[in-house]
């Protein structure tokens, strides 16, 4: 039982470590933000509480504290990879990442959903044995819900019926790229899509339907392998059509594979 869980824990945290390294290259670690001045708590009470306590501002405006938090974030992540059974390390990482998440979204001036998987995926590793299995499965439902809810939002708002939707989403997000790089190979592809709105709309509706397929996961696990493939394809579509990078969502895709995949002896591990 411990072997696949430890392997899975390492797999998840290697992914998270790579994501943190990418944050370093993106100049979005806390010390790299260079004491930002404008906050965006929006109407999320959790952000309000954090700002009322002055936690994001205090950390980001003191370089030594910002550096310490970044180092602690990396150290706890690497510690978990080395010692995957240590729940205290997972707890520390979650606390630190929560603070990072609030700072990133507050000073990025937009509450992006891309970091959510990093915030929720470690939670099952706080639990032992059978509780872990339930929490891991709970995480699978979280993934199913995220795509299903996205489908229902679009369904009830009827935006999928609007034939200009695909082209307008592209223009909204890709205009700076097309302005700065009008002759690149990628721009040629984008312009082709803009010139053929029906084609763009086809892909938009395909994405919408693919999001809807996750509903089936609430009733059976029989199609999880197909949902896994779809969950790999959708972030590519978000990037291409909306310039929204959701690679972190792939961490949650791991919940669609049976736990036996992570076990070397291939004994099925399941909840009965």
């Amino acid at each position, binding site marked *: 039982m411990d072997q696949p869980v430890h392997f899975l824990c390492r797999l998840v945290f290697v992914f998270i470590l790579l994501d943190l390294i990418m944050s370093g290259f993106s100049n979005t670690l806390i010390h790299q933000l*260079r004491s930002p*001045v404008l906050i965006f708590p929006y109407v999320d009470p959790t952000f309000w509480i954090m700002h*009322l306590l002055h936690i994001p501002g205090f950390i980001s405006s003191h370089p030594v504290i910002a550096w310490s938090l970044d180092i602690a974030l990396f150290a706890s992540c690497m510690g978990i990879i080395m010692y995957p059974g240590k729940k205290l390390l997972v707890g520390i990482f979650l606390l630190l990442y929560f603070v990072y998440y609030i700072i990133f979204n507050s000073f990025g001036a937009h509450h992006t959903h891309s970091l959510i998987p990093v915030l929720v995926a470690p939670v099952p590793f706080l639990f032992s044995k059978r509780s872990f299995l339930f929490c891991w499965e709970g995480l699978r439902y979280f993934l199913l819900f995220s795509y299903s*809810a996205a489908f229902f939002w679009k369904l009830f708002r009827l935006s999928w019926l609007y034939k200009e939707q695909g082209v*307008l989403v592209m223009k909204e997000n890709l205009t700076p790229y097309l302005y700065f*790089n009008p002759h690149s190979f990628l721009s040629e592809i984008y312009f082709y899509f803009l*010139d053929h709105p029906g084609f763009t709309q086809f892909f938009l509706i395909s994405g919408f339907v693919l999001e809807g397929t996750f509903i089936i996961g609430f009733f059976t696990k029989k199609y999880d392998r197909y949902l896994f493939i779809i969950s790999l394809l959708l972030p590519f579509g978000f990037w291409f059509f909306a310039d929204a990078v959701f690679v972190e969502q792939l961490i949650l895709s791991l919940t669609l594979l049976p736990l036996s995949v992570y076990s070397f002896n291939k004994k099925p591990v399941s909840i009965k």
Partner: protein
Amino acid sequence: MKRLFLYKVYCYNKKLFLFFAFFAFVTIICNLTGNEITPFYVWGMYSQKEKPPEYYQIYKITVNDKILDYSTGFFPANHFFLQSSLSYYLEMKENGDPLKLFLQKKMGSKYFYVLPYESSVFNSSQNIEKFPGWYKKYLEQTTGQEIKSYKVEVLKAIYDNRNRIDIIHSETLINGDYQK
């Protein structure tokens, strides 16, 4: 019934069941009302019908007399920070803190409940004035070079009949010269 996930959790551990049931319940309520409370997320991105705007905004950043193409060559989160913070600054420079305006409109006479917290959750005019200085530091962090001057222009762009971009208006948002 016995095959239901929540039922299995209920039989295994009542506390764990309450944790899942509470999480699922609040998440559903948040999605029905459209109010996000971290960690109860609302997944409604791009679900609204897109209205064709009058124009699209492009931020043209010139650093040490060279145009910075932030749309390529930068990691997505870096691109996001460079662009999103400028949009927010522009909005604030034109109308003040948008969150404050939103709450004043939404709450009407009940806005006085928010008054004690204003300084913690809204941006003061002093902070708005500090933005160009901070943006310079962040550009230095991003480009790895000392910035002697930088300029941010807001371009208004439209798509012509051939779906190619036309710039119809340009105005300077920030003009920072640090050579002296």
